[in-house]
């Protein structure tokens, strides 16, 4: 579905991602793990078009999108959700309507089908998103992703700053959306996400250090020491 070839990107003359290649098949979940916070967010932003690509190629369903605008990429079905990607001063309904109109030219901004998956948002539609707790905000983010009708989600630290109980809720929602047919690329250190992933991609200093199934990678001593220390 998504194919990345020798991708280079960064800010100004500083390259943070220094030539990364991997593929993401339809309905897969892949998790990005990096040391020193090094480059996960940059990689996701680069894929979303928020940071310009300096080298390499990004192909989405056979189409070269390396130089497409963020808007074109969203319309092509790939959505990046920042760590706290909601609109706090808008109501929950407005958040969802906005998300649902992101991919469509006009008209249909029906959010009722989305709400079926997120019953606890239903009663709070007219509240400002700012009134939600950290965990509920993450759930709203996922609801917005569903409303947008995107097929591929790039999630940035969906569990950061959450207590373990909420991490589980986010995780369950991701699993549910996968069953619905969505594809995920998730930057996340929490191992619960690694466990459900089809592949784990370990990034170090802007390059892929290693990749593979979580269970496999755990067997490698050096990786274990560096990334897991189990």
């Amino acid at each position, binding site marked *: 579905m998504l194919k990345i070839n020798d991708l280079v990107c960064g800010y100004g003359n500083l390259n943070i991602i220094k030539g990364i290649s991997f593929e993401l098949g339809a309905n897969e979940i892949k998790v990005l*793990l*990096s*040391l*020193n*916070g*090094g480059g996960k967010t940059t990689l996701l932003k680069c894929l979303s078009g928020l940071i310009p690509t300096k080298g390499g190629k990004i192909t989405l369903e056979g189409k070269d999108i390396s130089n497409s605008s963020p808007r074109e990429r969203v319309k092509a079905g790939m959505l990046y959700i920042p760590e706290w990607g909601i609109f706090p001063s808008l109501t929950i309904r407005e958040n969802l309507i906005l998300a649902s109109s992101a991919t469509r030219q006009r008209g249909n901004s029906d959010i009722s089908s989305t709400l079926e998956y997120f019953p606890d948002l239903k009663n709070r539609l007219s509240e400002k998103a700012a009134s939600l*707790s*950290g*965990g509920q905000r993450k759930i709203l983010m996922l609801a917005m992703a569903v409303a947008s009708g995107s097929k591929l989600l790039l999630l940035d*630290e969906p569990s*950061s*700053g*959450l*207590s*373990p*109980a*909420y*991490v*589980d*809720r986010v995780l369950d929602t991701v699993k549910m959306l996968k069953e619905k047919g969505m594809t995920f690329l998730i930057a996340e*250190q929490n*191992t619960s996400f690694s466990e459900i992933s089809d592949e784990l991609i370990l990034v170090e200093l802007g390059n892929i250090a290693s990749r593979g199934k979580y269970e496999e990678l755990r067997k490698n001593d050096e990786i*274990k*020491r*560096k*990334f*897991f*220390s*189990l």
Partner: protein
Amino acid sequence: MLVTKGIWKNFGKLSALKDVNIEFKEKGIIAIIGPNGAGKTTLVNVITGALREDSGKINLDGKEINRLPPHARIRMGISRTFQIPRPFSNLTVLENIRIGSLFSGNSNKREIEEDTERIMKLLGIKSIEGKQAGKLNTEERRLVDLGRALASRPKYIFIDEMGAGLAEGEVISLSKLIKKIQIEEEMSLIYVGHVMKLVKELESPVAVFSEGSPIFQGSFEEVISNDEIIKLYLGDRYAKN
């Protein structure tokens, strides 16, 4: 001894802190955990003076410090780091650490230089001392933030959510560093955050916060074997195990 007595703090209708009574011993490590919105960071803000409590008392070695501004509390030995590290981005690493020492009440020039050197070595950031903090990576920023807080020779240091977003291997080395700091600098170190792996590694007493007040104190093992806490904090899935 640092003691809070009946601290209340409201934001609008919401009570972030409800009658918080908690004691911090002069030496050792304690971890404060709790769900989001439990009031942990608010407590740190109130104790360091960044926020003013609505009511209650904060006592340091028998002296009331409620009315003191943040810069005076630092001089009495209360210091902190930030969840999102906040070094002075236009200053160099060296200047950042020096500032921590310079304005903490110590006027002995040589000691200031020695403290600065010692802390940079302890944290392993001596090699980047000339770099502008704005140009550091996340990890280095974290260390500079910590270094600044340490340079004031704190008696009590609050470390706010330091392990978030780290790979597990890094969490282990962070916990080792925290323990080493506590031993070498001889202080009371309060870790506030969610990273359970780190809390476990610290092998320290744990205080659990919920809805604005501490509801439990005990060892890590006690915490994870208490069903109520697990339901509240870790979620139902873990409770069944």
